[in-house]
């Protein structure tokens, strides 16, 4: 049995490794410099990276409270909210873009207010941020739920008994002990933002982020140019991946 198992397992591993290796090894450094690091590509990288960072920061600010409440408070509808958080996992990417556009485009009341505040959704930097935040919600919140669940509530009970209020306990005990999960969640959420393209093609083609640029170059110039353009992004993703595994203690 084990030999057969090993053969099938090897097949699956190759299916992941071969494409990535072909892409990384099959591109010359001249091509990478020419198409992957030209000013348009660098600007698109900058847009992608900065939008994803901002999306992640927004998710930290709103996700930490949500995850804390979900792990420390027992309230009606808690299970429903836990489910809602995971919804973006299964929403097809294009559909997610359409949903954001339907809800927040500048002709909707909410979108109107936001666009007057300089946060227009369509073809804008804030549109990119919204898309990235939307798809990353479950990653951030689930990592934080794991983190807060991993903090023994007895530690908090002891702290309370020693005179610390709930908020003192949160800042001195709970959050510091969940900090690894916060880092993991942030990296995951940042990486997920950087990987999205389907929803971006709908909500914010412009300003051109790196993912959109890769698609555009594939359609305009073909595989050769697109693959060179993709290399720097792939390297960034792989680096993030290594960091994620380090901080989450492997996995």
């Amino acid at each position, binding site marked *: 049995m084990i030999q057969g198992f090993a053969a099938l397992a090897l097949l699956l591993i190759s299916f992941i490794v071969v494409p990535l290796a072909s892409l990384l090894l099959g591109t010359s450094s001249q091509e990478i410099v020419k198409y992957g690091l030209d000013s348009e590509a660098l600007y698109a990288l900058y847009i992608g990276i900065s939008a994803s960072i901002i999306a992640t920061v927004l998710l930290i600010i709103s996700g930490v409270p949500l995850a804390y409440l979900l792990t420390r408070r027992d309230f009606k509808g808690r299970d429903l909210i836990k489910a809602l958080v995971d919804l973006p996992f299964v929403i097809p990417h294009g559909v997610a873009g359409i949903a954001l556009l339907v809800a927040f485009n500048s002709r909707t009341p909410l979108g109107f207010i936001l666009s007057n505040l300089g946060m227009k959704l369509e073809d804008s930097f804030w549109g990119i941020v919204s898309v990235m935040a939307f798809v990353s919600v479950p990653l951030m919140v689930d990592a934080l739920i794991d983190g807060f669940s991993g903090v023994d509530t*007895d530690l908090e009970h002891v702290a*309370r*008994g020693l*005179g610390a209020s709930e908020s003192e306990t949160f800042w001195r005990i709970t959050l510091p002990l969940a900090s690894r999960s916060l880092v993991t969640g942030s990296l995951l959420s940042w990486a997920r933002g950087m990987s999205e393209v389907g929803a971006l093609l709908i909500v914010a083609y412009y300003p051109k982020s790196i993912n959109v640029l890769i698609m555009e170059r594939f359609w305009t110039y073909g595989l050769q140019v697109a693959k060179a353009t993709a290399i720097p992004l792939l390297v960034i993703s792989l680096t993030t991946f290594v960091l994620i595994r380090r901080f989450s203690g492997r996995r």
Partner: protein
Amino acid sequence: MIELRDLCVDLGEFKLDEINLSVKKGEYIVIMGPSGAGKTLLLQTILGIVKPRKGRVIIDGRNATELPPEKRNLSYVPQNYALFPHMTVYDNIAFGLRIRGYKDLEIFSNVREVSEIMGIKYLLQRKPSKLSGGEQQRVALARALVVEPRALLLDEPLSALDKVIKSELQRFLKKIHSKIGFTAIHVTHDFLEASYLADRMAIMYDGKIVRAGTLDDIITYPRDRRVARFVGGENIYHGKIIGTKGGLTRVKIGELELFSIYNGRDETLVMIRPEDVYVHGKMGSMSAQNIFRGIVEEIEYRNSAYLVTFNVKGVLLRSVVTKQALEELSIAKGKKFTLSVKAAAVRIISS
């Protein structure tokens, strides 16, 4: 002084049902019971983590039922000690003082003092993960005691420890208590631990305190079959009250007839503790009201003593016997001995 009045809590599968208990200043109370009895829930309710559905928690004469835990000044010592893993031992002990806004110098001298008492001065700069189980317990006690709490709430502080370390820590706990004299509510499922440490004990079943009192009160008159079994009663029988004679109750277990000083109804449970069955070599002066002959059926070694099972008219009666007695009386399987049990040792448990 901590008083619990008619405390009722419902929390999923656990509950507390009309708990009444008062703990005097300096007293060491141990609450026993099997797992699932609600012991931890009781501690959490006293601590203020869980709000009761009904009833009151009164601390030093003041109704504390609605106070959050941080206003109660009770130190919690959970089973795993829950040392803050991201702080050194020093910072762990200093935590409560820092929260109270003490100055660094005061904190320093307080931590020093308590670590000296606990014998953990050499540990102050270490992280909790580097400590042994025994060291962790001492640190947890130091952290709990340094804030001079109204009471210590200890949740199974000795389980999950090796037998040898456990008995060392048990002695340490007793020593520290007699030295500092803190008030303690200690929860355990181990009767031996309780009998060693407790000034007074309470036994919980299904969220109720079914029996409270001193060790002597409880082992001599458990009042309830579960309590009898819990505190190690070995000889428990179905009996029948058949009358009275000379102010004593006559009770029959199978073919064996015994006198008891207790009263009871028709059908009843009868308990005789193994330490109350005396074995005699020759007829001497015996003050006991129940004297009969029994044949040795089995001899088991148990905890530096022997548990000898006698067959008395078909009733199996266990007695604790020392090695010395085993030798002096030449107790062996199949031999016949005179046994005596006082009427006061034949407990009638009507439940």
